[in-house]
C-alpha cells in the first residue's frame, strides 16, 4: 500500500518512539532509559543506538537535557515531544483498531476452527 504524501507511519519498536514513551513517564538518563525500555517493550537498545536516537530527538527539540552534576545526564520529554508522541500513539492506535476490525470480520466469515480466508488466495 502506498503511503500518503506528508504522513508518517510510526512503528512501536522505533527507538525514538520507545525513548519518548519512556520519558513520558518522567526524566531518565541513558542507562535508566535502556532498562525501562527493556522492561515495557522487551527491546534491548545498546548505548550506540540509544545515543544515536537521543542525538536526533534533541536536534529536533523533542527531548531536553536536564542540568546534572553527574556524568549521567537525564533527559525529559519536551512539549513538542509530547505532541509528537501523542500523534504517534493515535497513528498506532488507528492501525491497531483497523487490524482488529479486519481480523474480526475475517473470523466472522470463516468457518469455526478454520484459519481466516486471505483475499486473493484460494480457500
Amino acid at each position, binding site marked *: 500500500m502506498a503511503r500518503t504524501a506528508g504522513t508518517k507511519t510510526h512503528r512501536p519498536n522505533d527507538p525514538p518512539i520507545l525513548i519518548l514513551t519512556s520519558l513520558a513517564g518522567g526524566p531518565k*538518563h541513558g*542507562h535508566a532509559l535502556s532498562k525501562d525500555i527493556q522492561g515495557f517493550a522487551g527491546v534491548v537498545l*545498546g*548505548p550506540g*543506538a540509544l545515543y544515536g536516537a537521543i*542525538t536526533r530527538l534533541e536536534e529536533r527539540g523533542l527531548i531536553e537535557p536536564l542540568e546534572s552534576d553527574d*556524568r*549521567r545526564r537525564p533527559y525529559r520529554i519536551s512539549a513538542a515531544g509530547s505532541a509528537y508522541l501523542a500523534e504517534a500513539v493515535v497513528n498506532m492506535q488507528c492501525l491497531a483498531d483497523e487490524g482488529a476490525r479486519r481480523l474480526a470480520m475475517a473470523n466472522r466469515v470463516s468457518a469455526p476452527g478454520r484459519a481466516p480466508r486471505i483475499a486473493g488466495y484460494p480457500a
Partner: protein
Amino acid sequence: MLRWYPAAWRARYGDELGAMIEDDLEGKPPTVGFRWSIARSGMGERLRGAGLAGDSVSPSERVRGGAFTVLCAFALFVIPGAGFAKISEHWDQSITRGSRHLPAVSFNLLASLAGACAVAVMLGALAVLPTFLRFMRDGGWPAIRRRVIWAVAATLATAATTVALAVWARHLTDHQRNTGFGWYQLLFVVFVILFASTIATWSAAAISATRHLNLGAGQVKVAGSLAIVVAVSMPVMTAAAAVWWGSMATAAPWFLAGTAPGSSPSPLATNLLVVLMLMTIASAVGLLGLLRVVRSWRLLRSV
C-alpha cells in the same frame, strides 16, 4: 571505543555515553558485538556529520555530502584508470584494422568520458575558488594546513619515485622491466602506493577545505550537477573497459598476455581483472553519492 565518534559529538555526548557504557558493562570486558555496535553508531554519526547519511542536516549539506562521495569515488577511479591507461598503451598497433572497430569505440568512449570527468572536477574547483580564496584571506589556512602538508609530501615523494623509475628504466631491457619481480618491480609497487596516496591526500585536503566553506545555493547546485555527470560516467567507463577487454581478448589475446603475436594465451589478465574490480567499486560508491544528490535535489530547489 568513543574514538569512532566525531570530536564535536564526543564533546557533547561523550561523557554521558561513557557513563552508560560503564553501567551496561558492570565491570565486564566488552564483547566483540558490543564494540561493533559502538563502532557502527560512531561511523554513522561521522557520516551524518559530513552530510552523507540521514536527514538531520540541510538539503544543501546533503547535496554537498553526495558530491563529496562522488569526488572520493572518482579519486579512487583514477587509480585503476591510470592502470588501464598503462595496460592499454599501444593496443592499436597489435590488432588488425578489421578487428579494430569495437575496441576503438570502447577505448575512445572511456578516454572521452575520463576527459569529461576531469573537466567536471576542475569546473567544480573553479566554482568554489572565490569562496576558498575568501576563506584563506580570512585566516583559514591553519584549518587545512595539516592535510595540505600531507598532500604536498605525498606529491613530492611520488615525483621523486617517478624520476627514479624513469632513470632506472633507461638502463633496463624490456625483459628486465616487464618480467619477474626484483628491485625495479618493488620500486614500481612503491610508486603505485605513493600515487594512490597522492590522490587520496589531495582529495582529503579538498574535502576538508570545502567543508569549511560557506557555499551559496548556486555553488552547491553546480557541484551537485557536476557530481551527477561524474557519477553517471564512471559505470559507463567501467562497462567500456570491460567491452575493450572482451574485444581485445577475442581479436588479440597475445596483447593482454604479453606473448608473441598470433599465440593463443588465456585472455584472463589478472591486472585487468584488478583494474575492473576497482573501477566497479568506485562506480558503486559514486552511485551512492549520486543517490544522495538526486534525493536531496528536489528539496534544494525549494530552498
